[in-house]
């Protein structure tokens, strides 16, 4: 449009200039006639007319110039607007796939391995989308391989534990058979059989613990929490432990705050944890030591603490105390029957209950292991409790 306008303007301009040149020529001729005295009145009129005509022509052409300029400007604006529209169209056709890409990347990062984008639109965004999908495919493949490895490991531990149980049943069973007839055995033989039985029990514990850990790793260590009374649970555990602590002349006391709220836990699992903590306190403390179990309400949680006045745990060991196969001082573990897995399992179980476990110790003074569990009214969740960080102290 602007081009046509400009072309027409140039043509008109040429015409005007020709007309002005002709008019000037006519006026000049008229003035020459006047000067030579030949033209008379007619020549004067012609000269004046041509002069006026050129003035008119000039006005006309300047108006026309303005129109054309406006026309050109309008054309330019229209062109620019068109280009802008085209460009914004381009941008919006890029924006949608990019937004989709951002969203899919977010899903992928959030653990949704099936997140993919639709490939389409401009070739640049299509290439980007295809690259993203390829990367997501690769991630999914790796993750499923990892899952498969985890399953294999879990299966292996399960099978190994299963296969070991049958021979263990025979060893333990026949040793028990010997003990049924202990009167006909010499004291030395009785001691020997007792050692066999002790080690059988240790193997069973180890198998059970390994299985618990494998399940925990596979996310298959399940709990079925229910509203549970704290006091009977602790009293039951203390009763179970009494024979062992008394055999070492240790003093076992309990101190349970009255009117504790119910806790939302699986009682057998909490019993398992408390037995583990009390067994540790018993085995790592010398004869005659004091061991205490305390329970109190803290906010909307119940805290159960097992305290002993044993040798304590050096700080360098304390920070690794909840890790697997980490056990107390080697000098002591000679006579301690643990598997080194008890606290690691306890920590997993407590966190599964939405609680936290923590250890504090002063060498030479004693140790305290405390667990916090959600009281009813607060639902237990898989997420670690607010004090989880304390556990790795």
């Amino acid at each position, binding site marked *: 449009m602007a081009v046509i306008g400009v072309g027409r303007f140039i043509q008109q301009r040429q015409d005007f200039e020709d007309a002005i040149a002709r008019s000037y020529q006519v006026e000049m001729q008229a003035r020459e006639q006047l000067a030579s005295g030949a033209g008379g009145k007619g020549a004067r009129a012609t000269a004046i007319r041509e002069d006026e005509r050129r003035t008119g022509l000039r006005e006309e052409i300047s108006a026309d110039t303005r129109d054309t300029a406006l026309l050109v400007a309008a054309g330019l604006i229209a062109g620019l607007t068109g280009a802008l529209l085209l460009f914004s169209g381009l941008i919006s056709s890029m924006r949608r796939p990019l937004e989709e890409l951002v969203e899919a990347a977010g899903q992928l990062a959030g653990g949704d391995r099936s997140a993919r984008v639709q490939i389409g639109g401009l070739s640049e965004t299509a290439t980007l989308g295809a690259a993203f999908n390829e990367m997501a495919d690769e991630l999914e493949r790796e993750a499923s391989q990892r899952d498969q490895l985890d399953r294999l490991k879990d299966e292996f531990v399960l099978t190994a534990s*299963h296969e070991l*149980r*049958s*021979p263990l049943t*025979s060893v333990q*069973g026949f040793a028990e*058979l010997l003990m*049924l007839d202990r009167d006909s055995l010499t004291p030395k033989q009785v001691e020997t059989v007792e050692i066999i039985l002790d080690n059988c029990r240790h193997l069973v514990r180890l*198998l059970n613990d390994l*299985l618990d850990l494998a399940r925990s790793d596979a996310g298959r260590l399940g709990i079925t929490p229910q509203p549970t009374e704290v006091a009977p649970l602790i009293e039951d555990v203390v009763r179970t432990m009494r024979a062992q602590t008394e055999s070492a002349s240790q003093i076992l006391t309990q101190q349970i705050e009255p009117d504790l709220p119910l806790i939302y836990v699986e009682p057998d699992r909490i019993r398992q944890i408390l037995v583990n903590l009390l067994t540790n306190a018993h085995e790592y403390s010398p004869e005659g030591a004091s061991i205490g179990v305390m329970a109190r309400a803290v906010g909307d949680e119940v805290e159960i603490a097992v305290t002993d006045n044993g040798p304590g745990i050096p700080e360098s060991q304390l920070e690794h105390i909840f890790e697997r196969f980490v056990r107390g001082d080697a000098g002591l573990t000679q006579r301690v029957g643990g598997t080194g897995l008890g606290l690691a399992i306890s920590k997993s179980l407590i966190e599964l209950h939405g609680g936290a476990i923590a250890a504090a110790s002063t060498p030479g003074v004693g140790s305290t292991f405390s667990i916090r569990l959600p009281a009813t009214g607060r639902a237990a969740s898989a997420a670690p409790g607010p004090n989880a960080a304390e556990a790795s102290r």
Partner: protein
Amino acid sequence: MTRVLVADDSETILLLMRTRLEMAGYEVDTAADGQEVVDRWHHDDPAQLPDILLLDAMMPRKSGLDALRELREMGVETPVLIVSAHQDATDANAPSELEVSGYLNKPIDFDDLLERVVQLTSDRV
């Protein structure tokens, strides 16, 4: 005399079970797999059939649970204890229509086993 049929694929475990149960005054018969258990009902004199079954959950040829299913389908109502090598015997949980009377873990706690056998066989008298 109360008859106990024990099925396990391990001969040592069968020997152990036989010894403990005979010491407790039971008449003990053994089977190496589930098929042998089912065969008792096909071939034996009904008077010789056991009063209680102790079945290992996992056995070659025919598992304890498969044998039990067949027996229940035949209308056999003999009480059954399932012995499992799983840490948690209820992992081998049988459907309720198989009417399992109880589960025992390996290693076997014989005091527990004998107590349950007494209870299940005296119920029937």
